[in-house]
């Protein structure tokens, strides 16, 4: 499968994303933010970093980069898109995902491993995560507090759009386990169509045991499986 990893000025997790995909046996290439086309792409990763210095608001400027038009079209045509950290911020600013990410409630930048509970395995991003498995994945962000108004939150719940929530080692959604104050401990969500997802934690930094956890692989493996299913469905 071919993964396109976007690069905005000051994206800095693009190389880790490319490395993770390649180490898991698939192709990945960089797409500079000024490109108008994604080329032959099966899935897009919007990587982490501080695009445009987080100026004005995180992701507020990157969302207007030329490549985002192509990403929007790709998403409108059912393409799979996953935004990681700053990528999640870019996708919410672009309106491809609901809600917004604001300053962590304690005003601290949190760089630590956290635990994630997978709220649903019914998505191309979670289908290979064993039921009940708690994922241990690192976060590194100062503005990762997920916010959405009551109506949007209700809709996310009804539509099963919450994919991952911060939890403790035993899977409990406690306040202490919430590193940034996100409403309902939301760490990651998908859109209504379930082809675009965003999460603040970094699965690309947890795809090899040597990094302390390989739980992030399960998210990428879910995407690989979903893409394989798509291909098989097309061939049929």
């Amino acid at each position, binding site marked *: 499968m071919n993964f396109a990893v976007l690069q905005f000025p000051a994206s800095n997790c693009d190389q880790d994303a490319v490395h993770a995909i390649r180490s898991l046996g698939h192709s990945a290439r960089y797409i500079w933010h000024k490109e108008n086309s994604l080329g032959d792409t099966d899935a897009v990763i919007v990587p982490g970093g501080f695009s445009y210095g987080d100026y*004005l608001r995180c992701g*507020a400027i990157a969302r207007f980069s030329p490549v985002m038009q192509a990403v929007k079209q790709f998403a409108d045509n059912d393409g799979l898109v996953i935004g990681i950290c700053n990528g999640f911020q870019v996708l919410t600013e672009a309106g491809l995902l609901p809600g*917004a990410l604001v300053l962590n*409630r*304690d005003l601290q930048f949190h760089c630590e491993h956290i635990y994630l509970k997978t709220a649903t395995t019914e998505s191309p991003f979670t289908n290979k995560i064993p039921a009940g498995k708690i994922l241990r994945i690192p976060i590194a962000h100062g503005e990762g507090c997920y*916010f959405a*108004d009551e109506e949007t939150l209700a809709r996310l719940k009804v539509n099963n759009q919450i994919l991952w929530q911060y939890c403790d080692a035993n899977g409990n959604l406690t306040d202490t386990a919430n590193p940034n104050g996100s409403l309902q401990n939301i760490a990651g969500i998908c859109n209504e169509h379930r082809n675009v997802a965003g999460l603040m934690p970094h699965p690309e930094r947890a795809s090899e045991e040597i990094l302390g956890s390989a739980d992030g692989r399960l998210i990428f493996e879910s995407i690989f499986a979903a893409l394989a299913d798509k291909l098989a469905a097309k061939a049929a």
Partner: protein
Amino acid sequence: MKAKIIVTPKKAVVDPQGKTVQNALEHMGYQGVTGVHVGKYIEIDLAPGTDQAAAERVLNDAAHKFLSNPIIEDYRLEIE
């Protein structure tokens, strides 16, 4: 001609900066502070002779689409 845009966090959004500044003011001894909200101030210089009404329309559009995020922020625009 100058456009002045003040962007503030919506009341529904937790404003830890505001709260922190409020605590600091209290610790410093300033009495009677019942709330603090920290936002952004943006100044845009416009070419002389710009039509003010047109500028207001365009800048409201820019403020709504880009300079502020309507999900979490409110804005006020003034042109002088």
